[in-house]
């Protein structure tokens, strides 16, 4: 009896360890991007169309940095938004959702948070800012950022193996 329960326990332990390892292998959302009271369905374009309706809502948006600028007390980003996947990473091969402005308090190094890098932010909708892209006018939703997460650079280099068979004919 005793030895059986011990064996059952050891089997359970093996299963628990295996399950833990499996779960650990799955990528999960960075802790800093988790927040209570997130408005997960609020879309960029909706905010752009209704400038005052959603002020103060907490959102999690992300995308690729278009421009970064250090202001006197904050750093301002222009971001091209993409849909986020389950870990909060912007899917840059998806359809872009439009641009938004993100204001982060204090100094962030714009040589690191630079054009082309992927970021995800959690923050509150502040309203909209009317700006220009070239000669076209553009309405940017603006976010007061609480948390910003810089995604590591993507490793694009993948082994590409080619097998070729050639026949050479020469004079």
């Amino acid at each position, binding site marked *: 009896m005793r030895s059986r329960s011990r064996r059952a326990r050891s089997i359970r332990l093996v299963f628990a360890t295996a399950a833990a390892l499996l779960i650990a292998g799955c990528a999960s959302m960075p802790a800093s991007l988790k927040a209570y009271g997130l408005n997960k369905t609020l879309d960029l374009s909706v905010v752009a169309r209704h400038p005052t309706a959603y002020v103060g809502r907490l959102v999690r948006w992300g995308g690729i940095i278009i421009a970064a*600028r*250090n*202001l*006197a*007390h904050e*750093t301002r980003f222009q971001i091209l938004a993409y849909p986020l996947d389950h870990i909060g990473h912007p899917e840059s091969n998806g359809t872009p959702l439009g641009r938004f402005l993100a204001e982060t308090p204090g*100094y962030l*190094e*714009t*040589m*690191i948070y630079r054009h082309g890098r992927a970021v995800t932010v959690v923050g509150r909708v502040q309203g909209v800012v009317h700006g220009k892209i070239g000669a076209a006018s553009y309405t940017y939703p603006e976010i007061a950022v609480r948390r910003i997460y*810089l995604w*590591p650079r993507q490793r694009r*280099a*993948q*082994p*590409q*193996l*080619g097998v*070729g*068979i*050639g*026949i*050479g*004919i*020469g004079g």
Partner: protein
Amino acid sequence: MKPWLIIIILGFALAGCATLPAALRAPNVTSFTVSEAQQGQAPAGVRVRWGGTIAQVRNGQAHTWMEIVEQPLARNGRPHRTDQSDGRFLARFTGFLDPAIYATGRKLTVVGELEHTQVRTIGQFSYTFPVVKVTSFHLWRPLPKRRYWPTPNPFWYNPWYPWGYPFY
């Protein structure tokens, strides 16, 4: 194992170790960090070895000024390719350095003496820069892009690669 074999293996093993370029070797290099210098915790005159990515170059009449985004150094003195940074510092070089060569984004490691901090703006932000009077420096070659296989595959065009048909 035979002693000569051990010596050969050791030779190969040690050849793999990268060492600091001669220009970056100096006595009495202190371990003060950029942020410590920024906060005024490092006395002026001490020698430091710092490196990073060039953010901006300005050519004065007798000096060249560079803003460098600090990055931790590898054993061989090369700044790591990382998102970690302790902040920016200003490097002051005697004479002219061509901004076309010392371009934004290149990696540079300097050895020099600390001077008093200077406040300059980055965009509109007032930033306190530690200043290094550079005595010697090393500009790093850009790392080659990693390629696993040259494309197009040379065997496709010439089965006798790297020679011509039939083994010219």
